[in-house]
């Protein structure tokens, strides 16, 4: 044990993804035995940080120090060997195996190469009992609730005798009771000497658990403070402080007729949502992950059946049962994971642009290639898509240009209401401003936009009306910049 040194230290860490900075200039030291919380909005760089700490990613520049000595991880195995373990928000485990098998995954008890199943079952059950979890070791993991699976993942990390344990938004799916069990476990592990990194949106949890808290914003470290010496107000200010670049385009566009209206719409994951979108306006939906925004729009799009309320399109009640119904009305959903849900990546740009429109290109089921080319050219010019030609595969383009292809294919199909689900996640600053310009062009063309974003500066600057979601309900609606950023974040967190 090298006394006096931080247990784990990041020195001048940078992480770039194809030219984009995910993290820049991070200097952070984790003291032995502390509970260190990390807060920040989505896209602030928290998940990249975890991946660096657990060896899943390697830094582009800078270095890591473990007990004062430089270390480099080639993969997660190296980090595990030092006792670094992470419990992820999305459970990473094998749902078809038993709880016991998952507890010992990759670390099985064996004699002469044969599994000692009974021993693992007994030991696993003792571990679960000791931690106070009401879970059977022989149960199949996939049959448990997400919250219980989360507890199993934590137990798995605990039994490995970890020294450095990272929790990534662990309470997102937990009930109040499960959360308390988890907190007790975290405190017990901490008392046994483990250093804990706790990542969460929920400020009250941070104040309940952590000794210190670090705020990240746009890939940079903003502040590290002692929780005893700070307040929720101060942390929120650190999280949302204005970015230096003025990226957001906001042109005054006359607001036109009503496109979409929902009246007390309810469905899986949300209830009693009433809102209106008109031509020429952006309606922003802000909330934390799991607040029900995505469920709301996918229901609008016919993916889930609504359980109450009604949907009106241009003042006429409509029934949307399938995607095609929504598309025919003139709605377009630009999904969050556009790479796999919005695009055929190994096919051409022109192909992707024409995809929803093939039924009207040509006759007798044969595609008119001339018309197909004209269509591709038209959208490439209109949206300024930077591609060497319509034949190039969509995967070769930048994130912003891929986003434009998704927009272009719907414009071609005559869409008038565009729903963007987290359109700027994982794109660089330049691409962001390109995407905002696309918004402006769409509004000029008389379209309406629903913008779902967990990035508050974005929705705040762009939305003509900003609707705040929390726990599947709308908790507030604001006009353009009529509320303080802090107020909105507070409404979303429910602090």
């Amino acid at each position, binding site marked *: 044990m090298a006394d006096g040194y931080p247990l784990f230290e990041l020195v001048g860490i940078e992480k770039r993804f194809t030219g984009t900075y995910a993290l820049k200039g991070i200097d952070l030291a984790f003291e032995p035995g502390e509970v260190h919380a990390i807060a920040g909005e989505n896209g602030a760089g928290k998940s990249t940080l975890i991946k660096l700490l657990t060896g*899943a990613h*390697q830094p582009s520049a800078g270095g890591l120090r473990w007990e004062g000595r430089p270390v480099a991880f080639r993969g997660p195995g190296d980090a595990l060997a030092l006792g670094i373990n992470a419990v992820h928000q999305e459970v990473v485990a094998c749902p078809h195996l038993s709880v016991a098998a998952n507890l010992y995954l990759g670390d099985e008890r064996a004699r002469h190469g044969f599994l000692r199943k009974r021993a693992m079952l007994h030991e696993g059950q003792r571990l679960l009992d000791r931690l106070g979890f009401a879970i059977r070791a022989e149960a199949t993991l996939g049959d448990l609730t997400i919250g219980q699976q989360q507890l199993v993942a934590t137990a798995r990390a605990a039994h490995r005798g970890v020294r450095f344990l990272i929790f990534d938004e662990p309470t997102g799916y937990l009930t109040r009771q499960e959360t308390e069990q988890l907190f007790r476990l975290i405190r017990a592990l901490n008392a046994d000497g483990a250093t804990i990194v706790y990542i969460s949106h929920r400020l009250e949890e941070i104040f309940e658990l952590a000794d210190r808290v670090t705020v990240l914003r746009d890939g940079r470290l903003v502040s590290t403070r002692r929780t005893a010496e700070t307040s929720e107000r101060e942390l929120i200010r650190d999280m949302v402080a204005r970015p230096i670049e003025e990226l957001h385009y906001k042109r005054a566009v006359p607001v036109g007729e009503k496109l979409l209206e929902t009246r007390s719409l309810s469905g899986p994951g949300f209830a009693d949502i009433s809102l209106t979108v008109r031509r020429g306006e952006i309606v922003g939906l802000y909330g934390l992950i799991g607040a029900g925004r995505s469920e709301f729009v996918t229901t609008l799009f016919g993916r889930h059946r609504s359980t109450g309320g009604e949907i009106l399109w241009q003042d006429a009640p409509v029934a949307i049962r399938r995607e095609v119904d929504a598309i025919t009305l003139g709605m377009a959903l630009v999904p969050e994971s556009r790479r796999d*849900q919005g*695009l*055929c990546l190994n096919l051409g740009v022109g192909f992707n642009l024409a*995809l*929803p429109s093939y039924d009207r290109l040509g006759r007798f089921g044969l*595609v008119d290639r001339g018309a197909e080319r004209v269509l591709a050219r038209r959208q490439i010019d209109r949206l300024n898509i930077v591609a060497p*030609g319509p034949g190039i595969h969509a995967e070769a383009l930048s994130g912003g240009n891929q986003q434009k292809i998704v927009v272009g294919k719907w414009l071609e199909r005559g869409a008038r209401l565009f729903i963007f689900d987290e359109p700027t996640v994982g794109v660089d600053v330049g691409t962001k401003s390109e995407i905002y310009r696309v918004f402006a062009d769409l509004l000029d063309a008389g379209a309406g936009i629903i913008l779902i974003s967990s990035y508050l500066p974005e929705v705040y600057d762009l939305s003509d009306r900003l609707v705040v979601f929390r726990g599947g309900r709308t908790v507030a609606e604001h006009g353009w910049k009529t509320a303080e950023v802090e107020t909105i974040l507070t409404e979303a967190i429910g602090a």
Partner: protein
Amino acid sequence: MSDWRYRVAEHRSTLLAALVFVAMFAIYVGNHSAGFSANVVQTAANKGVLLAFLAIAQTFVVLTSGIDLSVGAMFILTNCLASWIVVGSAAMTALGVAGVLLAGLVCGAVNGAIVIFGRLQPIVATIASGAVYFGIALALRPNPGGDVSSDLADMLTGQLWGGIPASLVVLFAVILAIWLPFRRSSLGRAVYAVGSSEVAAYMSGVATRRAKFAAYTLSGLFAAMGGLMLTFFTYSGEASSANAATYTLNSIAAVVLGGVSLFGGTGSAVGAIFGALIFRTINDLLFVFDLDPLWQPLFLGIVLLISVCIGSVRLLRIRNRLDLFG
């Protein structure tokens, strides 16, 4: 603008397969005792065309990122059926041919229906349906035998003017009449889109089920064409389980050799045809170089492994293994 470069890149795998085939075939005829003669070409063509039809059949399904393990059984079933009904007067023969092709369409449509409505994985669905089709073939022809219109058979397996093999002309005609229009049709676009990203296709309002159904049905049709040609070559029907299995597996090998990605969305039937011809030529090469036939499966396997490895070089370039999943 240099769009033609991407056009070339798009067809690179097809062109590569064609080049490899030409090179191998040149070596073959160069070392054949009879040299480059009409008879050598005709024999080679007739052997290659059977697998080519099955490779096209397989291509349709593989493009949707599925797989059809019943092509061999459909091939054998239609062979047995043809040995009963493609006989007699010209009109009767024509009707028989139509009947055989219809049988193939029905078999393929059943596959499609099971995969789409039964929501079974293609691999399971087609293993099961293939067993059923082979069972029907056995019922039709418990023992090898039967007959086929010899006029038609001789016409389609012989030589045309200038010694061009008729079977190749048939293959060429089918490509012109079915594959090229398919590639240009909105249905064809839908098949490629489904194979590339079913979610993206579905969310773009593409009729994904129709596309898959069509792919399986066309697979049955081309397997039936192969079955007909087999009947014309052998003048009989035989419910050979060895043939059914071999042709199924070889059709997949041919598709891979021809540059059709098993992940779906890329490749073409033309590439698959060259893949099939390459596969047959390897056999012929082993023959002219007098290699012990016992070594053939081993050698074929090695060639296949190497070509699949070349196809997946892309994966080697990925530095971080997480990128594979992300």
